[in-house]
């Protein structure tokens, strides 16, 4: 069997084959049945292919197989004939854009991120800058190279992921649900970029739920069925039109999606379509509200002059809303607009900074929290945050059950299609099952209001439908339902009332029909998928984009970004940009590390108060003069240490056994002595002096630079250095996860004693962290952190320099020597 079999040999214009799979089946470990079976798939250079199918059908598996991620980074059992071109077998030959933009990154700054793949491919440093610029231009991301991508919007992050692939010179890009986390405008940006890349002749595989605008961009579509077979393949537009009903039945297209024929350049969503408006007004519930009779409906929730700040940053202000009781209300708006925070304020999980809140006719402050969580329930975007038990059945019953499963719990199991999963860990379920479980758990008890954060996010059409039906049922039973979403189709389908949150305030509230009729509002709130799609088209010069880009940059609500050390932009960087960085920061980080470590260790051997005080003073002077650290920052940094050491002073002063004859003051069990006090002071000052060098290191070190120096100067294998950096990036996620877990437990009345929380939260926190690190590792390997580039520091090139100067050696000798001199004085 050869690749040139068939009629491809003599046709000069036939495109070269990149991938050829015949009768391929894939089975994941731990799973009895193959995820893909009998797959025949060919991909040629320059082709763009759309993968469609219900969730769990193996789309991503086939994409990862094409990319070589399976079996390289993800283990699986594979059978059948597989051929990938030699070019694809090179490391970092493909670009893989993941659903979670955060998972694709392993660095802090744009330049390092772009350089990462090139470094693994051993591109010369001299060539990197040019390729970075080119890649940013091609990905239409006009940002400075030194920008910290933690502050980017979701759309910008996906663009950066594409840019890093382009910088590696990847001719083959895979998009694996790249817009799932994005608001409509950012989605438009990404879809437009796909269009643009196709025009440039890039080979692409795209997995995308919102595929309708792509039908004319993608040449071919592959339809997968639930069992992991290829159901049909052919011209994208043709087969989607012919198989529309099949796609609806399989749960690929939500049933409410209108069958439309989208032409590129035409607005994908024609909100001014008079028929659509008529449709909305025909609906009795909607027209009831549309006639301006909202006032007649009592408000379930009301906010007056609401203002919310988070971490010192304003999220929104001047919020005046009244959410009608017994109706379904949708909160919409751009990513980072504060939708989730608004929902949390209503649920009582977050407090308003200013303003008044009425919940079910009572002042928000008059509610006792137990009562309130009984009346108002809340469903988190990530179902895992809610899970408190190790088994599905316990989770659903909200208690540990044995054989005595209550009947209503059994009923919920059946109703939500969760039978057979009772004994499993909730974390082991599929995405759809997890969501259904969290919604089922929310419905276990009857509440007056149901608040849901992106209930249909990441779900296939079937689950979306089930949830939509459930919400309708609740409203029909007179319950108030509020949810946030990016899915405007869903809003149109089930909402009676909408609140648009954008630009730090409420832009609109009213019936959806009015919202859809108001294009300016939709545009302003980035709810039009085509707004970016259209303005961003063509090959205009780079400059005009800078304006709007910078806007999104600032709009992005930092508080909602669980971003690596992002929430507090490093003050050092700001200072650095205004001039030459201070001496300590110019040092080679490895030398800085060893100099401070040696000094700290030497300081541990100082047993006299005076010497320790002198060493302490030396450290302070070095930090202030050579590191330009303000005295205030030093005080703040040392305070936690100092408090502990004061305790030492006290305990030694109070309990030390003084030598016989020394004066002591006894009362109760305390024996105060001058001798003890002195001992305490000596110990405290010694500890303080030695840990000040830790602080010196922390204030001056730049972790990405340290990792480069470790690889270049100390020959640490790159997988250890880059892996450590990638691990450090995950840390800031912990604080965000912690907050959500605490809220989820509060809601279920399972918050527990504060001091037990670390124990109770540990498992879900660790699970999130492990998942994240696995995704990051896969992404890094896809970007070439494999083989020799991972094992040997000489196996890759480096964008950053890790030069060693004479002053590095000098510092390494002089600083510890000075400490030693003061010690021996």
């Amino acid at each position, binding site marked *: 069997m050869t690749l040139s079999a068939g009629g491809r040999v003599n046709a000069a214009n036939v495109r070269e084959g990149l991938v050829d799979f015949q009768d391929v089946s894939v089975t994941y470990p731990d799973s009895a049945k193959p995820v893909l079976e009998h797959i025949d798939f060919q991909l040629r250079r320059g082709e763009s292919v759309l993968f469609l199918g219900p969730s769990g059908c193996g789309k991503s598996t086939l994409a990862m197989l094409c990319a070589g991620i399976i079996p390289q980074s993800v283990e699986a059992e594979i059978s059948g004939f597989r051929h990938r071109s030699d070019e694809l077998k090179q490391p970092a030959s493909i670009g893989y854009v993941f659903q979670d933009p955060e998972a694709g990154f392993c660095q802090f700054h744009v330049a390092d991120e772009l350089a990462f793949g090139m470094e693994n491919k051993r591109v010369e440093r001299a060539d990197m800058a040019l390729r970075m610029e080119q890649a940013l231009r091609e990905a239409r991301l006009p940002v400075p190279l030194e920008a910290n991508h933690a502050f980017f919007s979701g759309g910008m992050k996906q663009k950066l992921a594409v840019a890093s692939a382009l910088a590696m010179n990847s001719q083959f890009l895979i998009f694996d649900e790249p817009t799932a986390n994005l608001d409509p405008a950012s989605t438009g940006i990404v879809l437009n970029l796909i269009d643009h890349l196709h025009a440039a002749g890039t080979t692409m595989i795209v997995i995308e739920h919102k595929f309708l605008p792509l039908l004319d961009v993608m040449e071919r579509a592959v339809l997968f069925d639930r069992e992991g077979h290829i159901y049909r393949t052919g011209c994208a537009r043709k087969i989607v039109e012919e198989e529309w009903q099949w796609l609806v039945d399989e749960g690929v297209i939500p049933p409410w999606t209108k069958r439309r024929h989208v032409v590129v350049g035409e607005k994908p969503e024609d909100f001014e379509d008079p028929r659509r408006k008529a449709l909305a007004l025909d609906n009795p519930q909607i027209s009831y509200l549309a006639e301006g009779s909202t006032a007649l409906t009592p408000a379930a929730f009301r906010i007056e002059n609401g203002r919310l700040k988070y971490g010192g940053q304003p999220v929104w202000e001047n919020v005046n809303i009244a959410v009608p009781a017994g109706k379904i209300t949708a909160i919409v708006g751009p990513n980072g607009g504060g939708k989730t925070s608004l929902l949390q304020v209503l649920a009582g999980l977050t407090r308003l900074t200013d303003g008044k809140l009425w919940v079910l006719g009572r002042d928000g402050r008059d509610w006792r929290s137990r009562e309130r969580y009984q009346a108002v329930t809340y469903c988190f975007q990530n179902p895992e945050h809610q899970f408190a038990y190790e088994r599905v059945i316990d989770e659903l019953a909200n208690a540990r059950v044995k054989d005595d499963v209550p009947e209503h719990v059994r009923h919920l199991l059946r109703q939500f299609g969760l039978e057979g999963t009772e004994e499993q860990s909730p974390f082991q379920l599929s995405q759809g099952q997890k969501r259904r479980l969290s919604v089922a758990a929310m419905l276990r008890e009857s509440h007056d209001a149901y608040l849901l954060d992106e209930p249909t996010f990441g779900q296939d059409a079937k689950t979306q439908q089930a949830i939509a039906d459930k919400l309708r049922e609740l409203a029909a039973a007179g319950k108030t339902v509020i949810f946030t979403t990016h899915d405007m189709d869903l809003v149109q389908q089930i909402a009676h009332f909408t609140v648009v949150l954008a630009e730090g305030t409420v832009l609109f509230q009213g019936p959806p029909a009015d919202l859809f009729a108001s294009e300016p509002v939709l545009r302003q709130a980035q709810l039009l998928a085509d707004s970016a799609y259209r303005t961003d088209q063509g090959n205009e010069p780079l400059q005009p984009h800078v304006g709007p880009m910078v806007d999104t940059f600032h709009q992005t609500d930092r508080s909602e970004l669980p971003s690596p050390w992002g929430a507090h932009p490093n003050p050092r960087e700001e200072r650095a940009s205004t001039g030459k960085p201070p001496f300590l920061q110019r040092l080679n980080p490895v030398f800085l590390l060893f100099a401070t470590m040696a000094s*700290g260790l030497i300081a541990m051997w100082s047993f006299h108060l005076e010497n320790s005080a002198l060493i302490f003073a030396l450290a302070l002077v070095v930090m202030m003069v050579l590191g330009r650290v303000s005295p205030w920052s030093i005080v703040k940094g040392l305070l936690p240490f100092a408090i502990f050491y004061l305790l030492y002073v006290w305990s030694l002063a109070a309990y030390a056994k003084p030598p016989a004859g020394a004066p002591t003051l006894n009362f109760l069990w305390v024996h105060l002595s001058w001798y003890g006090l002195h001992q305490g002071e000596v110990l405290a000052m010694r500890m303080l002096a030695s840990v000040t060098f*830790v602080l010196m290191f922390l204030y001056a070190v730049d972790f990405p630079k340290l990792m480069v120096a470790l690889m270049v100067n100390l020959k640490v294998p790159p*997988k250890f250095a880059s892996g450590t950096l990638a691990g450090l990036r995950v840390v800031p996620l912990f604080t965000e996860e912690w907050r959500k877990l605490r809220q989820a437990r509060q809601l279920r009345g399972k918050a527990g004693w504060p001091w037990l929380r670390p124990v109770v939260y540990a*498992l879900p926190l660790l699970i999130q*962290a*492990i998942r994240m690190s696995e995704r990051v590792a896969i992404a890094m390997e896809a970007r070439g952190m*494999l083989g020799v580039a991972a094992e040997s520091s000489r196996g890759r090139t480096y964008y950053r320099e890790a030069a060693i100067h004479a002053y590095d050696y000098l510092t390494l000798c002089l600083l510890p020597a000075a400490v030693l001199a003061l010690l021996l004085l």
Partner: protein
Amino acid sequence: MWKLRDVIVAVILALVCGLVFRVWDFVYSILGVSWVPGQGLLNGVWFLAGMLIPYVIRRPGAAIIAELIAAMVELILAGNWGWGGVLSGLLQGLGAEIGFMVFAWRRYDTWSMALAGALAAVGFFPQWLLAYSGISYPASQILGYGIFNIISGAVLGGLLAKWIGDALNRTGVLRNFEIGRQTRAGRSA
């Protein structure tokens, strides 16, 4: 052979353990146990990084690297032991590593975990004797401390880590790590 994902997970778990160490520092000083052997009984928690991480990723060197990183995190979080804490991390990690080395990094069960925990405690013992003036106590107390220290290492260090690791493994997230792989192999065998 370490994989990239092993490195990332080891770093993250070590960071978490560093935080646990710091919290335990507080607990330890609040409890203020004055009975010397009783102090030894509390030590095990500080060996956690050197137990849990090797149990999950099962690579040579995992114990010592993880315990050292966790100890450094503890110091950065204003650890009250200062640089002494980092030295403890090194010694405890070394002890645990020897425990895993005895079985050629192949055996990770109750007994090997308990042994590694006990050896972590042994690694720390000289530091307690010399740096924390353990040597100034009467011999009976030193002996008591040594025994309780080892018991604590085996139970609070080794077995607690095994319990946590198994709980994580049951949720399925460790499927692609060595612990998950070996669990599968054990089941099919």
